[in-house]
């Protein structure tokens, strides 16, 4: 691991120690965030999978009804019966915050649960298979909207988890070791400087004493 390009001074070391502390704290917090996000994400994904399978089965069922309907009615009449709609189905969009991830909440509005109200056509020229098909589709609608909500949440959370994981990893495997090594390098450098200046002083002292008293001459 490369150390940072810094001057080996005491001040720099204090600064780095402070930064290391912050990095450690950030790492711990991000790790907690990642773990909690992951837990909620796994739960949500399980739910989504279940709902998706249910919705897909229901849609297939609807489709079969439509196939039945098209078998007894001609194509033009069928399509024109379905062209217009009595009401517009909308969703009220709200937001929720899961561990700093904004996810949508959809609630259906304008849709009618009243069985008689949903048909956009008169009953005179259409077959009852078509009624079945439209009723079925109307029943799937709440689940379909719920699916959109939680699948979108999964998508947003997956992206956030990936980002958080990257941050945690970069702190754990790059930033923190780098700080630690740089601090160690500075500490060692400082000690080394200390030792060298001490030996230098000792040497100088020897030289001075020698000059003053001339020991080497006396104790020959």
């Amino acid at each position, binding site marked *: 691991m490369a150390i940072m390009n810094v001057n080996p001074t005491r001040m720099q070391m204090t600064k780095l120690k402070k930064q290391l502390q912050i990095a450690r704290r950030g790492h711990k917090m991000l790790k907690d965030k990642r773990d909690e996000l992951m837990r909620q994400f796994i739960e949500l*994904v399980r739910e989504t999978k279940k709902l998706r399978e249910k919705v897909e089965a229901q849609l297939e069922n609807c489709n079969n009804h439509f196939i039945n309907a098209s078998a007894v009615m001609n194509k033009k009449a069928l399509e024109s019966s379905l062209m217009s709609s*009595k009401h517009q*189905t*909308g*969703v009220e969009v709200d937001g929720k915050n899961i561990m700093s991830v904004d996810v949508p909440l959809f609630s259906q509005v304008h849709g009618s649960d009243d069985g008689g109200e949903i048909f956009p056509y008169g009953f005179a020229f259409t077959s009852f298979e078509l009624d079945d098909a439209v009723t079925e589709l109307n029943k799937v*609608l709440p689940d*379909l909207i719920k*699916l*959109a909500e939680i699948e979108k949440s999964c998508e*947003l959370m997956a992206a956030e988890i990936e980002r958080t994981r990257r941050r945690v990893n970069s702190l754990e495997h790059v930033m923190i070791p780098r700080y630690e090594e740089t601090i160690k390098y500075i500490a060692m450098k400082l000690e080394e400087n200390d030792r060298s200046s001490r030996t230098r002083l000792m040497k100088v002292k020897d030289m001075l004493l020698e000059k003053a008293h001339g020991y080497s001459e006396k104790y020959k």
Partner: protein
Amino acid sequence: MVKNIAVIGDSESIKGFGAVGIDMFICDEPLESGNLFKRIAETEDYAIIYMTEELFELCSRERAKFAEKIIPAVIPIPSAQGSSGAGRKRLSKFVEQAVGSDILFGN
């Protein structure tokens, strides 16, 4: 904030959705789907856009821009030919992205 729901697909697959109050955008020409999707998504009138799985996969480039936004939610649905498994594959891709490997669906 009330928004509408849109569905994009071939006429065979989505014909019923108009009857339940969802805005239909019929796209029988798969190559046109990207432009159509972009036009619909950019109006910001729609909170949810359902797409048949075939078109969903064709529009991946156009969809990328909206992946990080809260709305619209772009959701694949099976077409008249039945489910191709693209929806489930998408879910396992999310798991892979988040966890690093697919631990839930086992494929």
